[in-house]
């Protein structure tokens, strides 16, 4: 007669090997999980250290309040960050003007009007748009959108803020549309029925019930998309130009924070020079901008959450 199952279980439980593995697994998993945390800490520490080195050469006040960015001058180098911030904000503003109405209108269409078939086709197409490499978008801006704009408004220069702004906007539309659609689709059907039963038209339901109910998700999607636009690099490097200016002209060449970092990293400055350290200071500024946007997104989605 064979030994009972309970006895076999008792025997195998006694094996040391198994107990040891059980103890080691959480340790191993913890180490793996630490990789991304440690990387983040490493990046921030590097940024901070190199930024501090930069500020030993250029005063913080000159950096924060200066309105001229002239790092390559032979006579006097000037590191006032504002022209780069203005360049970034110009592109972001245009991107938002393009992307928010189109993104939200698409989301309303997809969640409230489109049939299941249409939704099944359009949503993946939108997501393909999100997967296009940004260098392709940059090329599209420079070789298609800019000439098109110039044919209508001849005063627009070959490098300007409008063209990359529009294309960055196109790039972030899928993000807004897709995340907003998710937020709107999760509004319960019974709430829509309640509004329809009051004699609302379909659009009244969409605009006065669904959109307000999904507002936290919609705003969070916009904030995340803006954060993406601020950090966008290739499109603005290719189509925005490399002349930082402190003015409100959208038709002229600009330089964004990201495009400046690309320019320097490509080899315009040697290691250890002030220009070399300046990219860390600019990078740090950029990091603060996108971090603030992400915190804002988190806050907004909590604060405006509608209960249902």
């Amino acid at each position, binding site marked *: 007669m064979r030994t009972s199952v309970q006895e076999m279980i008792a025997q195998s439980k006694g094996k040391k090997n198994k107990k040891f593995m059980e103890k080691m697994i959480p340790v191993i998993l913890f180490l793996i999980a630490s990789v991304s945390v440690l990387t983040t800490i490493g990046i921030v520490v590097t940024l901070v250290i190199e930024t501090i080195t930069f500020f030993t050469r250029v005063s913080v006040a000159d950096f924060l309040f200066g309105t001229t960015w002239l790092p390559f001058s032979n006579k006097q180098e000037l590191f006032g960050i504002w022209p780069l911030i203005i360049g970034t904000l110009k592109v972001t503003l245009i991107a938002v003007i393009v992307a928010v109405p189109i993104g939200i209108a698409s989301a309303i269409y997809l969640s409230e009007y489109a049939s299941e078939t249409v939704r099944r086709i359009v949503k993946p197409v939108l997501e393909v748009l999100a997967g296009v490499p940004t260098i392709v978008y940059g090329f599209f801006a420079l070789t298609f959108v800019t000439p098109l704009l110039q044919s209508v408004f001849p005063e627009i220069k070959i490098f300007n803020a409008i063209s990359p702004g529009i294309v960055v906007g196109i790039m972030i539309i899928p993000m807004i549309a897709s995340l907003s659609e998710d937020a709107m689709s999760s509004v319960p059907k019974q*709430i829509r029925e309640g509004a329809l039963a*009051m004699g609302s038209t379909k659009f009244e339901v969409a605009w006065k019930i669904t959109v*307000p109910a999904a507002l936290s998700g919609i705003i969070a999607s916009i904030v995340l998309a803006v954060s993406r636009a601020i950090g966008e690099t290739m499109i603005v490097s290719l189509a925005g130009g490399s002349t930082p200016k402190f003015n409100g002209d959208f038709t002229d060449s600009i330089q964004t924070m990201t495009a400046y970092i690309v320019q320097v990293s490509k080899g315009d400055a040697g290691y250890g020079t002030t220009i070399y350290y300046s990219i860390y200071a600019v990078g740090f500024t950029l990091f603060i901008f996108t971090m603030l946007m992400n915190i804002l997104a988190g806050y907004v989605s909590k604060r405006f959450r509608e209960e249902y």
Partner: protein
Amino acid sequence: MTMTIKADKKKSAATPEQGIKVPVYQTKELNLWYGEKHALKNIDLDINENEVTAIIGPSGCGKSTYIKTLNRMVELVPSVKTSGEILYRDRNIFSSDYQVEELRTRVGMVFQKPNPFPKSIYDNIAYGPRIHGIKNKKILDEIVEKSLRGAAIWDEVKDRLNENAYSISGGQQQRICIARALAIEPDVILMDEPTSALDPISTLKVEELVQELKEDYSIIIVTHNMQQAARISDKTAFFLNGEVIEFDETDAIFSNPSDKRTEDYISGRFG
């Protein structure tokens, strides 16, 4: 601008001669299919003004489908087909020139599960008047108060009108939904098992409310609870497998049903 008082308007129009009942809804040979499924079969029903009409029957008998057909909410289900006609105030609601929004402005609805909008209590009640073009703050204030009083919930929420409607209890939410329907002063109120998600005390409150509301409104209520039908309705229709088996005065249905199947159902032999 003064608000029309519903009760006055109603009395003059409703009872020109004592004792004669005016029908609000006349259903004539109504058939309805969900795809291939024949859900309603040759329904003929007249529903009178200022009465409570209860619709009872076992699950899947078509009672909810019927009430949702009365304000055409059933059309939200894909692949619904109908034949026959439903006259609301002598006009066929299926005719192509009948705007569904117009019908639903005259016929309010309260659902099985409380479904307030995720807005403040005030905005919930003001929603209907607002979408139908009433913007004046003073008038809206009046409508909100009158509707909440009408739904017997004013005293409970008058100090928290700006709170989210989901912050109150389920029973209170359901009365908010009734108040929301009252706010546009409809002619008919459809109630689709309005107490099935509520506790007994809230149920009692809603039932009392239905009794009061029939002074001013015609009410059609679907219920799976036969005692409820007996307590609150004037007339009762018994549905079974998509057909109307019996439709009569509630007293007659419950004390002396003429059809064997009705008797079996109300005595609890099935369903």
